[in-house]
Every structure is written in structure tokens, then in C-alpha cells.
């Protein structure tokens, strides 16, 4: 039977009395890259934090390959296989690159395979191998982003979520990062990516969702969304 890699239905959450998400439905097919588009403050980060268990959901559910991850503590969500590289990187600034990556392999399943995964991460981002004993705070923005993605990969995700990985990067670095993300897809995992570079991300993504007013207002393949007049006007300024 077909099981989506990630399935979210009717997800509602927010902060205090403010509802940021008001019934979000979203699905990731195994092995695909799915883009999540939305204006600043639309609730994209809140959606990831809710799935991760850092923000409590009021209603709805989330499933990973048919297994509920709803209401789990954050570390259990990671163990189940949903791992995010958070907005703003959130590295452990006083630790070396190697230590940052090793923290990513904290849960038992990931820890047992840590050396193999580490090799794979170094292969993906060779600069991290070179700088492995350097403190994370001494890296450039692009390199820090690689550490954040690498750290998430170390947890052996089934679904990897990337929250604005290109934020603050020079255009050339953005291109390289997107190349790496395309390579990650070959690792047989599914990627949910939040991006301000709407054009670039929709060209790469298999499918995309647009989050507006706390709900999914639009969805379709990358090509479909790029051809949509509402999306073009609102997010591409065309």
C-alpha cells in the first residue's frame, strides 16, 4: 500500500491566543523535493516547529510513512525520522564543526552509523572535512549553512526539512547549495524546503505548496505553480 513520506492534515497551531496555522494539509511523496512558499510571517517556520513538536498543535495530525508523529516530544520526532535544519542555522557556536555534526547523530540509530554518515556528509561538503576542528562561529555564512544541513543529515532523516537554507548567502553560494540539495535527494529521502528564492526552488522541486492566511492556498507541480498568475504576481513580482 502506498504511504506518503509525510502527511499533514488539518494542522492548527500558534502562540498564545494567536492562531498562525489554521488547518494545514500537505503531503510529501517518498523521494521527492517539495517546496513550501509563503510571505514573511505566513507561518512556514511555525509549521516546521509544530511538526517537530517544539510548538504544540491544537488539532490535526502528522504522519511519517503512516506512523503518527503527532504530539511526540521533539527528540522522538527526530528518532522517528523527521529532521529539520532550522531557520537561522542555530549552530552550537562554541563547538567545532565535527562536534556540531556529531550532536546531530545523537539518537541511537544515527549514532550507530555515525562514521559512515560523516563520510557521506564530508563527501557532500568537502570544505567541512577540511575545517572539521574549527569552531562553528568562525565559518562563513555559507559554510555554517552546510554545517546545519550536515547536522540534520547526521540524524539519518527520512524526511529532511530545510528552513530557508539560502538566507544571507551570496548568489554563487546559493547555486552551490541547491546543487548539494539535489544530490541529497539521491540519498533516497524526501525533502521539504522553505525558500525565498521562489523561482529557483520551484524549478528544482517536484511539487510545491503556498501557505497564505494559515492555510494552503495553492499547490501543484513546480511548473504549474510557476505558470500560476497569482503566484507570479505575489511572489515573483511579475
Amino acid at each position, binding site marked *: 500500500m502506498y504511504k506518503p513520506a509525510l502527511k499533514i492534515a488539518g494542522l492548527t497551531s500558534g502562540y498564545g491566543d494567536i492562531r498562525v496555522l489554521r488547518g494545514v494539509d500537505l503531503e510529501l511523496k517518498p523521494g521527492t523535493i517539495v517546496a513550501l512558499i509563503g510571505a514573511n510571517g505566513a507561518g512556514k517556520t511555525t509549521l516546521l516547529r509544530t511538526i517537530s513538536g517544539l510548538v504544540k498543535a491544537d488539532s490535526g495530525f502528522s504522519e511519517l510513512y503512516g506512523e503518527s508523529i503527532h504530539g511526540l516530544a*521533539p527528540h522522538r520526532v527526530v528518532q522517528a525520522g523527521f529532521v529539520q535544519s532550522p531557520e537561522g542555522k542555530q549552530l*552550537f557556536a562554541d563547538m567545532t564543526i565535527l562536534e556540531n555534526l556529531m550532536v546531530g547523530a545523537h539518537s541511537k540509530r544515527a549514532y550507530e552509523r555515525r562514521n559512515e554518515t560523516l563520510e557521506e556528509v564530508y563527501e557532500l561538503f568537502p570544505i567541512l572535512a577540511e575545517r572539521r576542528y574549527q569552531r562553528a562561529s568562525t565559518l562563513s555564512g555559507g559554510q555554517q549553512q552546510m554545517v546545519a544541513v550536515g*547536522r540534520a543529515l547526521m540524524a539519518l532523516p527520512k524526511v529532511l526539512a530545510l528552513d530557508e537554507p539560502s538566507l544571507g548567502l551570496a548568489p554563487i553560494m546559493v547555486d552551490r547549495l541547491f546543487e548539494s540539495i539535489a544530490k541529497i535527494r539521491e540519498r533516497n529521502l524526501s525533502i521539504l524546503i522553505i525558500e525565498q528564492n521562489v523561482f529557483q526552488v520551484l524549478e528544482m522541486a517536484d511539487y510545491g505548496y503556498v501557505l497564505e492566511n494559515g492555510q494552503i492556498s495553492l499547490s501543484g507541480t513546480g511548473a504549474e505553480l510557476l505558470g500560476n498568475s497569482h503566484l507570479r504576481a505575489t511572489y515573483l513580482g511579475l
Partner: protein
Amino acid sequence: MDPFILSFAVVNGLLQGGIYGGIALGLSLIFGVLRVVNFAHGSFLMLSLYLSFWCWNLLGIDPYLSAIVTVPAMFALGYFVQSVIISPLIRRERALVVEPLSALLLTCGVFLVLDNVALMAFGPDVRSVQLSYYLPSLMLGPIPVNIPRLIAALAAILVAVGVSFWLRHSHAGRAIRATAQNRDAAAMSGIDVPKVYAVTFGLGCAILGLFGALISPFIPATPTIGLAFGIKSFIVVVLGGMGSIPGSIIGGLVIGVFEAVASQFVTATSAAIFSLGLFILVLLVRPAGIMGKA
């Protein structure tokens, strides 16, 4: 000033300071990871002293051996206090750090409960342990060195080195450091943050359990002894650098030596006041403490 008296004061100050530092270690560790100032710190030491005393008094266990009881008992108590009393507060907070005032008030409540329960249960009597053997003073040239104090001071350094090494090189230690640096990122990396908090709190209290046993041969147990040690620990930790393990020992040594030397010139009470003056002076120059990061 007589050089003999001065060096005698310095040696005793170093011993006393090492002990201050060892007692303060847990406070610094807990603050470094949870950002909670544990006002009940001294009360946990008071409980360890009683535990060590009762082990000796009722069961005839040597005070040093009583660490086998006090260390796990204090770990369990610390784990319990964190996961049952303090944790709900942290869970309510949305930001990366706990509201310092609410946590302080809460641990202040723990302090009041522990000290008053001790007063009710044990009464105001002073209870001292007697070692069943005689430990002669070690002679450092002409200066006599009190062995139990030397043991406690050396233990402080050993524990500080051990804890630092463990934090730096073990899997669990790395998880604790990660949680201290960014608890959300730690959670998103698969670390059970509430458990790390409880273990850290337990560890901080377990160190007090050890020092309760180690100082029981020369510090008698009374229900109110905790507060003085708690405040001293706070001064030591702020002076050395909040959250720094070596800072705790260095802060302790500075305060210990300063007090011992100053009390050669003025009364011990005035010396304690002078050490507060030193404390303020150091913080004016280095607001983050001696080993703290500005």
C-alpha cells in the same frame, strides 16, 4: 608581617578556597546548562551533611565512605527537584532561556522548604561526626596542613578536572554542552532536553553529596548551615565566571586566600566583608567573571 604567619594563612586560604570551589561546582554547572540560579544550593549541602552524619551515627559508616550513600541520594533528589518542580516552569517558557526571576523565586521556595523541614525534623542541635581514627597534620616545612581539609580541596580539583573532561569528551557530555548552548537546536538534533536538564541538576547535587561527606569531619551539620555556603558559592561562581567549571575553582581559591590573609589583619567577619569588596572590584574590571566570556 611575619612571613611564617602569612604563608600559613595562604596555605589555609588555598585549602578553604578549594573547598569553596568544589562546593560551588554544582551551582555553576546547573547555571551553565539550565540558566537557573539554584538558590537552594546550600540546602542540598546541608542535607548531604545530615545524611553523612546519620550514616555515621546510626549505621556506623565512616564519613568518607558515606559518600557511597550521599552521592546517589543527592543525585536522585536533584533529578527529582528538576523534573518535578522546576521543569514545568521551563516548559512554559517559549524563549530560549528561562525567565531568571521566576526560576530564582522557585528555587528560593525549595530553599525555604528544605531548611525549615530540616529544622523541624532535626531540631537546632549541632551534630558533628567523629572520625574513628586520628589524622595527624601533614607538615609542609614548618606549616601544618590539616589532612581532612586537604582531602576536600584536592577532591575539588579532581572533580573539576573530571567533570570538564567528561563534558568535553563523552557522548553524554557533548549532549549537555549542546543543550547549554542552544536548547531548541539540541532538541531538533534528537536530544531529550528535559532529561539532560534533570541529569545535569542531579549531577550538580551529586557533587554536593560528595562534598557533604568530605567536609563532614570538620563542618558540623546544623539546619541553617546551608545559606552561608549557598551565598558563598554564588559569590565564587559569579567571581569565577557563571557556568565555568575552572572558574568555580579559581573563584574559590581567590576568595579563600583573600579571606584568610585579610583575617590576619582584621576580624574574620570584616574579612568576609572585605572579600565582598574584592568581589565587586573584580566584577568592575571583568563583568563576566575571571574565566567568564564577556
